[in-house]
């Protein structure tokens, strides 16, 4: 007799979205989350719901991303109704800047490819500097142009996580703050142990970020992931001036700016590197020179959970049916499909659809 229908290991954006999705389907769910000092990719978040550029070389991933973007509005509304938390969700499109003619040409080609790969579903528009000025009056003169897609949007990622946890709790989900040390598959059920106790469940979903790497083999899966650091600078609150999210600069609903980003190979170091911070500041002030006298008040480094090909992992165990492992570095964009679709697959189909088969970690076995 199981204590829970499902257990989700990990309370970050993937875990909490799945947990909420399962509870929403009426399952009795427990979510395991580590303490305050855990590495949390969910904390390091720009807040973008980004479609342009994603899956440029993998139409399946691009389609999956678009599916989530399409459902975000409904997903956000439901969460707000349930929890009274306003996610500050906006879906009016976004820009990715090109800082040279070569970049612009490359970007244009990429956008065209995504457009044709999606049979015209993905749409975009290229803007040159003078055209950009009409929508982004503060754009700097050295910005060659940008790609714009109405598919893009943004949200407050911290409120999103909080709302998912609150909704999870409201729907009867149980949060257990403890580190999972062992998982055993016995008699078509799973025994999940911590240092102090053990609980049983019929289905287990591993969404524990880097811990997935060590937990997955316990249920016959593998999750080959590695950390990549991205740094973000946060500025003081200023008067609203940027009404669209962009890949490098985003003004939050509270008025502060998030400036990104970097791609660093530093193992599990969540600190900051002054040279990277400088690059980010240089780029941000080139894009919007009006930010020169705005002050940075915080900076942090966060670890992206990456696979070799940059695509997510969705896997169902063959040796331990009922065990799933999910990993992605786009926890915000994919939150809608995680909560609405993936949770549904787990509950109803007891399997993953063929459209997600390509994201199995088996693709790394060559």
């Amino acid at each position: 007799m199981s204590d829970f229908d499902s257990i989700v290991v990990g309370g970050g954006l993937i875990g909490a979205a799945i947990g909420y999705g399962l509870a929403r389907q009426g399952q009795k769910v427990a979510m395991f989350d580590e303490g305050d000092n855990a590495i949390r990719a969910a904390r390091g978040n720009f807040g973008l719901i980004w479609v342009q550029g994603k899956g440029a070389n993998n139409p399946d991933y691009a389609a999956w991303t678009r599916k989530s973007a399409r459902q975000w509005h409904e997903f956000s509304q439901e969460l707000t109704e349930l929890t009274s938390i306003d996610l500050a969700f906006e879906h009016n499109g976004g820009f990715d800047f090109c800082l040279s003619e070569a970049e612009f040409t490359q970007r244009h080609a990429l956008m065209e490819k995504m457009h044709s790969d999606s049979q015209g579903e993905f749409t975009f528009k290229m803007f040159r500097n003078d055209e950009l000025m009409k929508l982004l009056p503060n754009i700097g003169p050295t910005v060659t142009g940008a790609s714009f897609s109405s598919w893009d949007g943004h949200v407050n990622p911290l409120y999103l996580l909080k709302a998912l946890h609150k909704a999870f709790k409201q729907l009867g989900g149980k949060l257990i703050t403890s580190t999972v040390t062992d998982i055993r598959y016995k008699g078509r059920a799973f025994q999940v142990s911590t240092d102090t106790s053990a609980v049983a469940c019929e289905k287990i979903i591993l969404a524990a970020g880097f811990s997935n790497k060590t937990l997955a083999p316990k249920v016959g899966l593998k999750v080959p992931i590695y950390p990549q650091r991205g740094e973000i600078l946060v500025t003081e609150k200023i008067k609203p001036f940027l009404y669209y999210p962009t890949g490098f600069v985003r003004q939050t609903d509270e008025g502060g700016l998030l400036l990104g980003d970097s791609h660093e190979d530093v193992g599990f170091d969540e600190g900051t590197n002054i040279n990277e911070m400088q690059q980010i500041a240089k780029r941000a002030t080139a894009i919007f020179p009006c930010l020169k006298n705005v002050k940075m008040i915080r900076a942090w480094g966060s670890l992206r959970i990456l696979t070799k090909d940059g695509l997510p992992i969705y896997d169902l165990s063959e040796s331990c049916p009922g065990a799933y492992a999910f990993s992605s570095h786009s926890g915000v964009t994919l939150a809608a499909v995680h909560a609405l679709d993936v949770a549904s697959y787990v509950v109803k189909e007891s399997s993953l659809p063929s459209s997600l088969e390509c994201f199995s970690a088996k693709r790394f076995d060559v």
Partner: protein
Amino acid sequence: MFRSIKHSQGELITIYFEGRALSVSKDHNVATALLEADINGFRKTTLNNENRGPYCMMGVCFDCLININDVDNQQSCTTQISDGMKIKRQIMNTPGKDE
């Protein structure tokens, strides 16, 4: 009521608070100058539109932020006044809200 207890104020200069001319001792920082002029509240907070003024006077609390010569977020307690300085209250609107 803030007032000076010095025998002599020393040299005075003129600064402007929202158009109003103030004659202030040139050694003052902006916060002190405004407190002496009985200005109540230097800014409104972003979220709840609360009226805030200086708290610590030593650059730690960031509550004394004010607009100086058209630049927002200046810490008035660590900024010296200068002749002709134009100061006004800082009011941040949340994006999307109509105030």
